[in-house]
């Protein structure tokens, strides 16, 4: 009895705190409604709202102050207050999924194809924007129409997210220590290595004089074929589906799905990997060493690494200041698909109470340079200052301990980047993004016709799990140069329900292509 009384009391307490929250929320509009009488632009007075944004990463100490300033400056146009919340990366996708599954109400969140975007789509977490986008964000919509980026964000005819408007291509580059190579007499110029054979010869020379370092670290990239596998895919004109080791031929109009282990590219990649492990260019421990390759490179422990145009064009901010790097594009005459526009997106929650206001905000971000600067960099003079067009920390603020002024470089801002407004930073110097965009527009860097396709793994869940197990046990060591039985691996994958998987995936690809051609 007493226990029941306590339980009731605790329920009452939580209910009381709920009403306290409601009281706080309702007092907000009443205090800021006085702003309505002074606004003159809009035809009808807009209601004051609070927009809830979710981003990934750590919340910078100055974030609340910055967004309060944004809200204050644009109160006559947007009539909105902003509640900006950050979820740590490790838990970001899972927490968003749980919130979406339980029908939580927020307005906008960051997402990416390398996060849980495909799962959020699967859970119908995002609001279709087909009608709202042109109505409330006309300039943004016009931008999308010229760039065609909404293609990738469209699922079954519904526009479900707003991709970023930057263009990039992440084709394979090789990056090496120019300071060491030049000093030891075998240095090569920029783009001086074009084929695997040339790379092999170069790395052998590096091995002779740099025995204290790892010459090439196979590392982990997003996707199983590891670096050598991806270079071979480039050479043989195969495109990675980024889905359990399946590829397709870029010249094949039917987009027939091929398991990577059955290709010539796989054989050659395995042969190179074995040769490099035998020659001592690659370490036998690379598969178990989980340290980030870039960190190893920055600490001077690795001579060369797989890279991209973006990464190799950035200003070096490695801890070891003696490091000078040079890079080369491999197989420059082969085509490679541009990075998906879904690399960084923002999605509007299906249960958002104010999608129109969010779209107005995003549209303003596309056109108003001042809003862009505030959102990206903070309040001028407090969180940043402009030096030669670049946004840097204000004088007198300690780089390692900015305290309440910390805001620059906040994670998840990438989805808001606009090529017309973006400022150079320490790492991405002036002209960087223009160069990236020009690189992506080169004739050999083409758009992916299967962009926006997300496979539904449900029908083939078990077979995919089996495939992953076989891949972990045999496929990865083969590509790391530790095992050599390719035919045995192919047979094992065949026995793990490969035909079922391919049939299902092909079906999904065909359905995707059919829905695209219907438009």
């Amino acid at each position, binding site marked *: 009895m007493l226990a029941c009384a306590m339980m009731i009391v605790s329920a009452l307490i939580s209910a009381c705190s709920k009403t306290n929250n409601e009281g706080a929320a309702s007092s907000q509009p009443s205090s800021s409604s006085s702003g309505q009488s002074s606004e003159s632009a809009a035809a009808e007075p807009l209601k004051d709202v609070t927009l809830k944004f979710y981003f990934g990463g750590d919340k910078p100490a100055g974030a609340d102050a910055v967004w309060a300033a944004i809200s204050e400056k644009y109160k006559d146009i947007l009539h909105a207050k902003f509640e900006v919340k950050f979820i740590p990366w490790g838990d970001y996708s899972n927490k968003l999924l749980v919130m979406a599954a339980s029908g939580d109400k927020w307005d906008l969140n960051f997402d990416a194809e390398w996060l849980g975007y495909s799962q959020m789509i699967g859970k119908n977490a995002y609001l279709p924007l087909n009608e709202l986008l042109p109505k409330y964000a006309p300039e943004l919509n016009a931008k999308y129409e010229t760039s065609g980026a909404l293609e990738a964000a469209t699922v079954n005819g519904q526009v479900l997210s707003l991709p970023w408007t930057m263009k990039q291509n992440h084709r394979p580059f090789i990056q090496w220590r120019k300071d060491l190579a030049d000093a030891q007499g075998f240095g090569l110029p920029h783009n001086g290595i074009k084929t695997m054979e040339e790379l092999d010869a170069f790395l052998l020379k590096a091995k002779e004089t740099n025995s204290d370092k790892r010459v090439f670290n196979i590392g982990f*990239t*997003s996707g199983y074929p590891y670096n050598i596998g991806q270079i071979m895919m480039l050479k043989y004109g195969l495109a990675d589906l980024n889905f359990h080791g399946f590829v397709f031929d870029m010249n094949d109009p039917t987009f027939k799905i091929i398991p990577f282990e059955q290709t010539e590219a796989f054989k050659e990649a395995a042969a190179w990997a074995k040769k490099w492990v035998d020659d001592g260019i690659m370490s036998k421990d690379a598969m178990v060493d989980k340290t980030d390759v870039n960190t190893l490179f920055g600490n001077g422990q690795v001579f060369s690494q797989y890279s991209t145009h973006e990464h190799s064009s950035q200003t070096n901010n490695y801890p070891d200041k003696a490091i000078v790097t040079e890079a080369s594009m491999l197989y420059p005459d082969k085509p490679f698909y541009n990075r998906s526009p879904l690399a960084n997106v923002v999605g509007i929650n299906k249960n958002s109470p104010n999608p129109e206001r969010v779209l107005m905000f995003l549209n303003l971000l596309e056109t108003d340079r001042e809003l862009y600067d505030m959102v990206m960099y903070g309040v001028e003079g407090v969180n940043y200052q402009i030096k030669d067009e670049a946004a840097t920390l204000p004088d007198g603020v300690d780089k390692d301990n900015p305290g309440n002024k910390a805001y620059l470089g906040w994670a998840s801002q990438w989805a808001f980047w606009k090529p017309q407004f973006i400022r150079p930073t320490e790492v991405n110097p002036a002209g960087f993004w223009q160069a990236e965009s020009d690189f992506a527009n080169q004739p050999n860097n083409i758009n992916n016709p299967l962009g926006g396709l997300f496979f539904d793994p449900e029908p083939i869940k078990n077979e995919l799990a089996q495939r992953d197990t076989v891949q972990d046990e045999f496929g990865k060591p083969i590509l790391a140069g530790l095992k050599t039985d390719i035919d045995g691996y192919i047979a094992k994958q065949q026995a793990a329900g490969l035909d079922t998987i391919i049939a299902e995936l092909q079906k999904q690809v065909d359905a995707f292509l059919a829905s695209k051609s219907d438009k």
Partner: protein
Amino acid sequence: MNTRTKFRRDAPITIYVIVFLISAACIIPFLMVISGSLSTQKDIMEHGYSLIPRNVTFVAYQVLFMKIDIILQAYKITFLVTIIGTVASLLINAMVAYTISRKSVKYRNAISVYCLITILFSGGMVPWYIVCINYFHLKDQLIALIVPYLANAWYIFLLRNFIGSIPEELHESAKIDGAGEMRTFAQIILPLSKPALATIGLFIALGYWNDWWLALMLVDDEKLRPIQFLLRVIVSNIQFLQSQIGTSEIRNLTDMTPTEGLKMATCILTIGPIIFLYPLLQRYFVKGIMVGAIKG
């Protein structure tokens, strides 16, 4: 006869050796964590963890001290949650246990079965989340870190058994003396249950101290994050970084990779107070283990 006396003389030595080995196995990892927090990143990468740091450095603690206000806030939250949670939870569990231990309560078996079911079955993560957020409105508040763990069927049963061993006559004599239920509970039953309460109090306090799940699921506000959550964020960020290293955005977040020393130093911070508390509470712990067992 000689061998028997010899065995008896050596017995203490054997026992000492065994106990020493077991204690060493418990203490050595802890010492390695301390030494890891005082070693340079370079040493750990090249030589791994060692019992005594090769080059002693306080860099990890310096980095932590730069974020001292975050850490102090996290400590404050953890202390508040642990103290309030333990007291409230003990009260609630004791009250339920007392109620169902009284033979005169008509539906005590039904309540016991109801508690039992919560041990056996669970609706899953999403229903739990829906109940907490949509029905109890626990989002982003301090009590969100307390309420979900307040009532625990295990402890209720333990307490019920212990309180059940207190003779019924005591209660009747209290009633004759004119004490109401509440007074009997507060002034007779609770003092008599001290051993059980201390044991369970320790378990509950540990549960609250170590909890990061509630902070992860129910709280977004960074001012309400407990200390264990901070440690977990570091670890999960590392795992995330390793899985996403091909992504250029994540690669550019250079401050995401904490050093090994930083991980160890944060670990020391999170277990620090517990280490001091344990010796004080140890005797209750030992005495209380058998508390729920049949008296006799």
